[in-house]
């Protein structure tokens, strides 16, 4: 072991690899390429992973939207084809019966799923926009970015059915002057004046939704459009650890029992389960990470075997040199150590260069995809994985170095010297 930390040993190894540049470079390229591919693959798949996460970051990842349709089976004296209508009170029932539900809010809309959008007028400007009746709790399920000075709908708005609204960016641009502060301004929606309390930045938080929405309190919506106790759909968020597929089933069966629908009626209620889709995408990303890990490791292995191969050839080529060294007093152990240390050292150097190059390429891809829709964010390779890869390389480098090293000492010095 003392040998390892001896300056002379390393000077000898540097001499040997430094003065055989072509051989060294060719040897290094194999492993360098291997670790490079490994780092790029691992980093890229992590980047995709982060990208997907980011795309979903504004919305609760286990969101479910549930709506009513019409029955397809007769039940309890009702004939088939009966239209169903969700009731506001159903939300409370669902929350009470299904403990996995964290938040639930009924929503009514106009101009989103059919129906004319609301004609909105401000002074001489006018346009039609979809209108949502929202409870404040919506903000907890789908993060709403509200521009400075503004706010989202709050509980007081709801209780007092205030005529306030949160408008989309496009709505602001179309109804207000460029340098005008929309907050506190009034717009006329369906002939009723609403005070603007916030402007929301457009992010895709629901499967629908645009940049030109108008949000008003749910109770105000009820009065405006006379929706009574009806609700168009529920936005539901389950707790993080809940099984979203099961929660969706539970929601549907509770709704069926409330609305007296046949338990096997699949068409009575519809649902969009973001959690399930999210899990599928993350499963895909995880699979990608796994595959890239396997491919990367296999590439490293191929590279190390390449080093072993070249060292084996170089040992043959160096038979005479090794014979001379042994005639001059190198013990078999010293010859073996020389070859193995060369192998390990080359592997390490190649590995480190490969890691640096891989990191460079990753950050290049990152900067190229920065402002695009491509789901690619912050590609990183966890340090343990990098260290693990280096460790694997050192171990493999040693093992593979053993073969040429053993070959080098198996030739008797006298035979080595005789070889011309």
């Amino acid at each position, binding site marked *: 072991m003392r040998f390892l930390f001896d300056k002379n040993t390393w000077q000898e190894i540097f001499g040997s690899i430094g003065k055989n540049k072509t051989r060294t470079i060719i040897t290094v390229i194999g492993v360098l390429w291997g670790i490079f591919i490994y780092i790029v693959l691992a980093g890229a798949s992590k980047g995709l992973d982060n990208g997907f996460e980011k795309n979903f970051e504004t919305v609760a990842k286990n969101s479910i939207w549930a709506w009513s349709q019409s029955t397809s089976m007769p039940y309890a004296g009702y004939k088939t084809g009966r239209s169903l209508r969700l009731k506001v009170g159903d939300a409370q029932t669902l929350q009470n019966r299904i403990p996995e539900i964290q938040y639930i809010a009924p929503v009514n809309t106009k101009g989103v799923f059919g129906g004319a959008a609301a004609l909105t007028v401000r002074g001489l400007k006018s346009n039609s926009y979809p209108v949502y009746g929202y409870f404040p709790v919506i903000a907890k399920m789908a993060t709403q970015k509200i521009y400075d000075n503004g706010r989202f709908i709050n509980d007081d708005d709801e209780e007092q059915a205030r005529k306030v609204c949160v408008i989309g960016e496009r709505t602001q641009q179309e109804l207000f002057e460029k340098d005008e502060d929309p907050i506190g301004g009034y717009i006329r929606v369906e002939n009723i004046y609403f005070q603007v309390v916030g402007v929301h930045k457009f992010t895709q938080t629901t499967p629908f939704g645009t940049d030109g929405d108008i949000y008003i309190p749910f109770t105000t919506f009820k009065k405006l459009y006379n929706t009574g106790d009806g609700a168009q759909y529920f936005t539901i968020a389950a707790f993080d650890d809940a099984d979203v597929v099961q929660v969706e089933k539970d929601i549907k069966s509770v709704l069926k029992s409330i609305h007296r629908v046949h338990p096997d009626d699949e068409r009575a209620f519809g649902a969009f389960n973001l959690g399930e889709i999210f899990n599928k995408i993350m499963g895909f990303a995880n699979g990608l990470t796994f595959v890239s890990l396997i491919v990367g490791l296999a590439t490293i292995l191929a590279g190390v075997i390449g080093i072993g191969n070249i060292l084996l050839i170089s040992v043959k080529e160096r038979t005479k040199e090794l014979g001379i060294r*042994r005639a001059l*007093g190198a013990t078999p*152990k010293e010859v073996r150590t020389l070859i193995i240390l060369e192998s390990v050292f080359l592997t390490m150097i190649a590995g480190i260069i490969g890691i640096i190059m891989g990191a460079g390429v990753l950050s290049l891809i990152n900067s190229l995809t920065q402002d695009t829709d491509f789901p690619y964010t912050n590609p990183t390779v966890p340090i343990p994985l990098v260290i693990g890869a280096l460790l694997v390389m050192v171990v493999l480098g040693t093992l593979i170095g053993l073969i040429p090293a053993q070959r080098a000492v198996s030739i008797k010095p006298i035979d080595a010297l005789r070889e011309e």
Partner: protein
Amino acid sequence: MIEIKNLHKSYKMGSNALHVLKGIDFNVDDGELVAIMGSSGSGKSTLLNIIGMLDVADEGEYILDGIPIKNLNETKAANYRNKFLGFIFQSFNLINYKTALENVALPLYYQRMPRKQRQEKAMKYLDQVGLKEWSHHLPSELSGGQKQRVAIARAMVAEPKVLLADELTGALDSTTSYEVMDLIQKINDLGNTILVVTHEVDIAHMCKRIVYLKDGVIIKDEKVKQVKALAHV
């Protein structure tokens, strides 16, 4: 310095054995310059390899400076070679990617001598063979005679008990051969024991004693009047 008694060596060639050395008895005193002569196949190189611990005898005794050389493993042989022996080969056997100085310093590396000390000592011996100015040249940049002088410096740098030269002039023209022999004679005059294997009569006569080998036995062992190589240069 060297005592050899009843040395036998045979090589297996397929089914039959080739008996190369058939009982050699041979002594070399301190400071001698001995030529071992013989035609090819006479066993002279085998004898030198056994003395050089590159090969082992089947039978017989070999004592080097009072140390019985037997039951050698590779590691022990390597240490003995490093400490006791210096080799000079026909084909020089310099390491081609190392400079003259590094080649000379190599035996000292295996004695674990620090680099600086190693280079100083190597430079001293390079100076002794007259190649101080060529210390940083690669073997490919040196002439045959210069290469052999580097090899001689390398053989001497560890201050071995015996120098073993195997056909050291075999690859050189006669003028260069005499120059190299002149160097060998000078080194011998300093008190070093040297064994030279050769089949060239004129080279043999530049030594102080000639041992004739034929078919694995010594047929003649005589002291000769040394011809000074300098006279031919």
